């Protein structure tokens, strides 16, 4: 009897592995294998066709101590992340709070704010190139209505990165929905009790709303940080394959792309990718370590 049950369980386990087999195969072939290869190749002068000689830590040394463009690209990326992540987070929370006030036409507003977030790709980049065009674009015309003389956006090295951040802000609707879902889960009774105690709307926001949505803020910040570091396509399309004025849009991944697929200095590019991996890993670990200090989990009800 006991033996039969044991067999049943073992068989069950085998079936489980069969179910996840596609993922296991994909993980080994498309993730783990490539990771391993990339780690090894980052210590070589690999160029995909002829050579793969072990050159120790040469790539890493050159990157860190002898490559000005590496630092330029890292600076550009950090600049972009440092502004786009907080701004999109605050923007998304702000919109979701506005929407969560029993306003008429909630569905209508939600649709409008979310729509830009589902649009992406070359069409969107072209649209923003036109919107940001200093002479014929919408944005400087709009600023002109208020007597503001708009900058040259994508043509002025000081304004290229703010241009991309502005474009990013157009798609805060995804984050907004994330927060809205979580706001709708905050019990109404909490606000009613606070109102009886005479708490202002602002106090209610700081002491009820904000703590209740910290788990979502955490999730949002972690994922947009990882995403922000990987900015590539918008810069590639909007600079016509160059790095923008004075390399001001040469982001980390963009530089890596040039090294890997333009000059085929693949060992070098793979070393670069590992440095980025380490940066992202450390930042995520810091986030995870800091989380218990500010992220508020309500009981253990979730999961």
């Amino acid at each position, binding site marked *: 009897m006991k033996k039969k049950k044991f067999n049943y369980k073992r068989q069950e386990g085998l079936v489980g*592995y069969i*179910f996840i087999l596609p993922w296991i195969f994909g993980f080994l072939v498309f993730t783990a294998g*490539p990771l391993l290869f*990339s780690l090894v190749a980052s210590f070589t002068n690999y160029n995909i066709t002829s050579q793969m000689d072990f050159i120790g830590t040469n790539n890493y040394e050159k990157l860190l101590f002898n490559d000005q463009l590496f630092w330029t690209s890292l600076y550009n990326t950090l600049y972009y992340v440092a502004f786009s992540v907080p701004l999109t987070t605050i923007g998304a929370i702000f919109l979701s709070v*506005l929407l969560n006030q029993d306003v008429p036409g909630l569905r209508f507003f939600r649709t409008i*704010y979310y729509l830009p977030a589902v649009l992406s790709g*070359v069409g969107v980049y072209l649209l923003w190139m036109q*919107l940001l065009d200093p002479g014929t674009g919408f944005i400087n*015309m709009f600023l002109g209505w208020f007597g503001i003389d708009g900058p040259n956006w994508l043509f002025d090295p000081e304004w290229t990165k703010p241009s991309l951040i502005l474009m990013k802000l157009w798609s805060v609707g995804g984050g907004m929905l994330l927060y809205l879902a979580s706001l709708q889960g905050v019990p109404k009774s909490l606000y009613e009790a606070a109102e009886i105690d005479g708490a202002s709307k602002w106090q209610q926001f700081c002491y009820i709303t904000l703590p209740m949505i910290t788990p979502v803020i955490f999730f949002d910040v972690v994922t947009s940080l990882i995403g922000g570091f990987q900015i590539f396509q918008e810069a590639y399309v909007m600079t016509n394959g160059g790095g923008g004025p004075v390399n001001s849009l040469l982001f980390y991944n963009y530089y890596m792309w040039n090294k890997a697929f333009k000059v085929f200095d693949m060992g070098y590019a793979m070393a670069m990718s590992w440095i980025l991996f380490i940066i992202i*890993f450390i930042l995520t670990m810091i986030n995870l370590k800091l989380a218990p200090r500010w992220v508020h989990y309500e009981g253990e009800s979730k999961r």
Partner: protein
Amino acid sequence: MRESYFNSMANRKKVLKIVNFLLLCVGSLLFLSPLWWMISTSLKTMQEVMSFPPTFFPKDWKWENFAKTWEAAPFDLYTVNTLTITVLVVIGQVFVNSFVAYGFAKIPFRGRNVLFTIVLSTMMIPGFVTLIPQYVLFSKLGWINTYFPLVVPAFFGSAFNIFLLRQFYMTIPNEMIEAARMEGASHFLIWRKIGIPLTKPALATVAIFSFNGAWNDFLGPLLYVNNENIYTLQLGLQVFKGEMNTQWNYLMAGSLLVLLPVIILFFFFQKYFIEGINLQSGGKS
């Protein structure tokens, strides 16, 4: 008199509500204006596009801009190519991830939690770390200038979708699965007869997100496709941009045509887009 009006709690609430509503109205105008601008520019003559100051409404509506744009490049071919890739990717993503997610959610096996942790942690790996060696792999396989690199990986699970669908499977009571097991049904049968029907809304979400992802994918085709006959719409649009320079009316018409299917999909299936977001945040919906 005025002061006392604002001091009354009820009135203050009313004012706040109106301010809130007005803010939302102004905000939605701001959010819609880029889209309006795209439509408006696409209908202008080149002369009007270049006129200063720019006009908010086109003077005469040049609908033929769309026809001219469509004929200026083989966009019909690009559409067929893009649809081919997109349909295959959606099929792969929906069925394979559903299958894998069922395994992670409903079948107990050794090391399940460890493996699922690995699934989640792969989401943290920056794409370029695996992109370069994957390119090496695909080029050694002779897959450059084919759709294999764009389609095949979709049939081997994606961490995000596995996560999403597993969340959904967790809401199906285990007793239901066990009861079916008692009846002698295999897990494969249960997945097909109970799992898929019950997770339909989540599958729709995965389908829509995958469609969107494949339709808008630029990086993949840019890397793997350099034969014009198999270009996708995103690549075609990028090349079109190079040819058109600053002829914004045609460029906006092209952009609009490429974005249109996604916009239409959004209006029809908004519910599933939103569902996906709720699942991400661990919501119960």
